[in-house]
Every structure is written in structure tokens, then in C-alpha cells.
């Protein structure tokens, strides 16, 4: 499909507004993306026409709600090329999906003396659950170092990997640096020592195609809200063979088959891991968001986003006093930087008054900030609807910030 930027922008109603008399320039897509009208409509339609609980009623609305919810699961399974829908577990988001794995799989499989290997560029959500697990069972958390470009040091990864490694947790695309990690190689090497791999796809899934079977990944997690879908919903995609052996994460309705006070028989996959009334409209919106991505296609998306990052990077390289944080060869969509004499937090405020929305802070990746010896960075993150003119507006606003502090 031809990529028509004007048409794409028109799909996102929120983009069409002014702040402080200037057109909104939304460059905080790594925090959350905007939602296309079709997603908003799918959610509204569900509440306007089909709202009911799922898997519980024989009445028409309940059947419609169930069809919508399960239809979304099917779309998601197809998108990630899961073997079947039983491998798709709805969660509140990437964070809950990681906690599910750490708690359920980790609790049953990680023992004292074992190791969990993560990387220096993980989001806090792929650090803390493992830290908690290791503390709880007496295992050791090991960390793969990064280099000055913000890339994993693969030799160190191989050295840290051992028979003791039970799980490798790695981010597919770093939210703080933009780095895209060689997850295929990582998975292969981890499997060679018998370790399982969890890939945090919270950033990646909207920007690069993911095939969980080709990757042979054990656990892949992501959040809908970073993929043009609603907040409060995400997925864990995991091998059925592993999910089958895992104890439930939470107990409650939907995850059971028979309950007596003596014993409970758990439900089949994927319901065993979906206790309680789920986020039905969220799942439906998520499914619609994925169809939206599919309608544009990753060939067009990747090409367009590469173009835009290259344009922004070229500007950043010649901008006086700007230091980029994260210059990996393989990266996407993220321009993280510090500016001499202007604290990122002040930049955030000044840019906001120019109607340019960026994130300033540690990006939930404090170890990355420590590595680069900065308290925070300013981060512009791009999406398929951003334009070169918006990149220009960003740099014009940076100039203005420098003038204020001159």
C-alpha cells in the first residue's frame, strides 16, 4: 500500500488541534500512541450496541461481547503468528504480563542458586518483577552490559549465559534509547543452554513485524496502548507447551471449571490465566488497532519511520550543544538527548509551550541514565503519523530553549 501521510494523520482525530495557538506536535509516542478513529469507534460501538459480560450468558448481547473479545484474540494470534489462540493471554499490559510470567513460571521454575539474566537497558517493568522473584527464591539477577552507543555487548551476554541461567529477559526495542536488540540470536543462544526467553515488546510491536514462531520465543509481551490501541490491555503470548505447565497467576471467576470448597479444577488455556471479568472493550479496541496496523503494513511503516528518524538524526547531529543518548546501528523511532545548559525538564516545559510534546525524565530506565551519567534525557519518539515539518518544529523549539537560557 502507498503511504499517504495526510490520510494517515486524518485517521487520528487528536492530532488536529492547537495548543497555545500552535499546531500540536505529538512526539511522545514511546509513552503512548494516539488512537485512530476506527479504534475509538470500535470501543464506542461495543458500549453502544453490544455491552455484556463474556463467557457467561446465553443471551444475544453476551454472545456478541464474547465474539468481539475472542475475535480480538484471533486477530492478535494472527498478527504475532502464534500457533493458536490458546497462546494469547490478555493482561492489563506488558507490565502485568511480565509479572504473570515472573510469578507463575518463575515461582515454579526458578530456584535458589539459579540465575535470571536481564540487560542494562530494560524498562523497570522488566527489572523489578525479576528482582522480586530472585529475592523471594534466592536466585541471582545478572545484567548484560551495554556499550557507549547503547547496544548490548553480545560477548558479555554469551559469557554471562550458563547452565544456571533459567531465563533471559530482554527488551526488543529500548524505550530510552531506541535500540533494537538482536533477539533472534539471543533466543538461540539462550535455548542452547536450556534457558527460556521473555522478550519485552512494549515498544517494538507497533514498529517491526514479530513472528513468535520464527523467533521461537517462549514469552512475548506487549501493551495495546503503544500500538494505537487503548490503555489497560495487553498480551502475553507464550508457547502452549509452557503455559500448560504453569500454575495460575490469579484465582477467580472465568479461570475455573469446577469449584468446591475442597478443590478447584482450573479452566483450559487461555482462560486459566484470565481471572475475573476482562477488559472487553479494551480487547476489542486492541484487535481493531492491530487491523489498522495491518491495513498500512509493516513494509510501509518501517520504511516511513526509518526515513523520519534519519531526518531527525541528521538534524540532531549538527545541532549545537546536543548530545544524543543512544546511537545504536539498529534503532527506531526514538531520539533521546541532552542539551548543554538546559535541563531536560526545562526543555519539556518550554517545548510544551511551543505545542511540542516530548518526554523528559528517566523513562523508567534509571540504570540507563546512570550508565550515561545523566539525571534524565529529553526524548522525542516518532510514529507513523509524524512528519518532517514536526521534526522541524521540534528543533525550532530547541533553539528557543537555548535562547531562553543563553
Amino acid at each position: 500500500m502507498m503511504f499517504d501521510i495526510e490520510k494517515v494523520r486524518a485517521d487520528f482525530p487528536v492530532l488536529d488541534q492547537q495548543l497555545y495557538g500552535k499546531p500540536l506536535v505529538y512526539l511522545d509516542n514511546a509513552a503512548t500512541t494516539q488512537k485512530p478513529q476506527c479504534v475509538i469507534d470500535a470501543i464506542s460501538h461495543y458500549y453502544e450496541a453490544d455491552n455484556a459480560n463474556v463467557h457467561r450468558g446465553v443471551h444475544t448481547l453476551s454472545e456478541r461481547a464474547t465474539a468481539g473479545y475472542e475475535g480480538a484474540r484471533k486477530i492478535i494470534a494472527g498478527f504475532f503468528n502464534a500457533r493458536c489462540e490458546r497462546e494469547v493471554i490478555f493482561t492489563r499490559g506488558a507490565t502485568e504480563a511480565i509479572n504473570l510470567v515472573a510469578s507463575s513460571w518463575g515461582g515454579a521454575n526458578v530456584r535458589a542458586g539459579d540465575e535470571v539474566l536481564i540487560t542494562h537497558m530494560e524498562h523497570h517493568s522488566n527489572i523489578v518483577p525479576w528482582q522480586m522473584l530472585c529475592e523471594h527464591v534466592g536466585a541471582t539477577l545478572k545484567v548484560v552490559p551495554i556499550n557507549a552507543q547503547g547496544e548490548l555487548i553480545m560477548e558479555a551476554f554469551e559469557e554471562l549465559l550458563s547452565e544456571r541461567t533459567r531465563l533471559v529477559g530482554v527488551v526488543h526495542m529500548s524505550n530510552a534509547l531506541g535500540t533494537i536488540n538482536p533477539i533472534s540470536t539471543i533466543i538461540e543462544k539462550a535455548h542452547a543452554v536450556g534457558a527460556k526467553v521473555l522478550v519485552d515488546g512494549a515498544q517494538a510491536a507497533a514498529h517491526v513485524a514479530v513472528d513468535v514462531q520464527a523467533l521461537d520465543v517462549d514469552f512475548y509481551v506487549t501493551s495495546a496502548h503503544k500500538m494505537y490501541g487503548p490503555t489497560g490491555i495487553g498480551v502475553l503470548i507464550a508457547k502452549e507447551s509452557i503455559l500448560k505447565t504453569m500454575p495460575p497467576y490469579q484465582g477467580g471467576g472465568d479461570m475455573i471449571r469446577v469449584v468446591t470448597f475442597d478443590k478447584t479444577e482450573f479452566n483450559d488455556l487461555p482462560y486459566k490465566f484470565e481471572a475475573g471479568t476482562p477488559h472487553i472493550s479494551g480487547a476489542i479496541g486492541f484487535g481493531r488497532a492491530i487491523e489498522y496496523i495491518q491495513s498500512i503494513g509493516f513494509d510501509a511503516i518501517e520504511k516511513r519511520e526509518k526515513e523520519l528518524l534519519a531526518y531527525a538524526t541528521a538534524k540532531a547531529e549538527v545541532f549545537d550543544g546536543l548530545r544524543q543518548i543512544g546511537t545504536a546501528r539498529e534503532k527506531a523511532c526514538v531520539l533521546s538527548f541532552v542539551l548543554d545548559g538546559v535541563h531536560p525538564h526545562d526543555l519539556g516545559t518550554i517545548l510544551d509551550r511551543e505545542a511540542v510534546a516530548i518526554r523528559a525524565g528517566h523513562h523508567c530506565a534509571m540504570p540507563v541514565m546512570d550508565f550515561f551519567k545523566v539525571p534524565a534525557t529529553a526524548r522525542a519518539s516518532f510514529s507513523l503519523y509524524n512528519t518532517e515539518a514536526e521534526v522541524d518544529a521540534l528543533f525550532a523549539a530547541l533553539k528557543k530553549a537555548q535562547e531562553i537560557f543563553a
Partner: protein
Amino acid sequence: MFELRDLYQQVIVDHNKSPRNFGKLENYNHEADGYNPLCGDRLHVYLNVNSDGLIEAVSFEGEGCAISVASASLMTEAVKGTPLSEFSAKFDMFQHMVTADLEEVPDEEVLGKLAVLSGVREFPSRIKCAVLCWHTLKSAVTDSDEVAKTE
């Protein structure tokens, strides 16, 4: 419309660039840490109160955004040489100024130079930056071992 220059007044830019009373005091009898995890701002204040209860010397170290550094710098100027017993009232006065209704005109007679920070009212997410140093100084005054936060 409220302009950026109302927040980043020259005084603030200047105090950010060359903060007053910056560094560790040689002699001090109170100190405290302040931390704003949201922005990563870190402050450490040192305080020397003499036997007459006067704040003889005060200083700060740390890193942060322009608002937090300038606010700390202005705070040290505002409390230096004043009786410790007046600190609590100053603290309340500052806190009030940065959270008051926008219509309320800050009383420059009372607030002095601190009034330049009244602009943060327009920027709710930045109020924390301005008050962090005051919370930290309060911790120092009360000899609290806890790292000061703004919530």
C-alpha cells in the same frame, strides 16, 4: 497569555547559571537530602545555626532543572542571617505562593526576590521543582533522617 518568560525570568536563568551558596559548608550542624524521583532532581542542604538561633550559613549542592536550582539558590539568600524560628512561617509563605490561585498577586514586599517563582503556578507539573529545596531545608531544620520529597 502566560509567557514562558514569566516562568523563566532573567533572575531564574541567572540563579540557575550561577547559583548562590552552592557547595558544602565548612561548618554546619544540620543537613538533609532531597530527591524528586519524577525528574531525578537531587539536593543536599547544609545549615549552620548559631547559639543565638540565627541561620548563620546555609548552602546546597546537587543537580536539577533550572527551577529547582534557582529556587534553592534564592532560598539560601532568603533565609541566610534570619532567625531559625522564622523558618516555618517562610516555608508556609512560599508554599502558599506557588500553589495560590492565579488571580492572587504575590506580595513582593513580604516575599522579596522569591516572588519571581510565583510563575510556576501556571505549570502544575513544575511546582514540585520549586518546593523541593524548601522541603529539604525543613528536613534539615528538624534533623529528619528521611530524604525529603515533595509529596
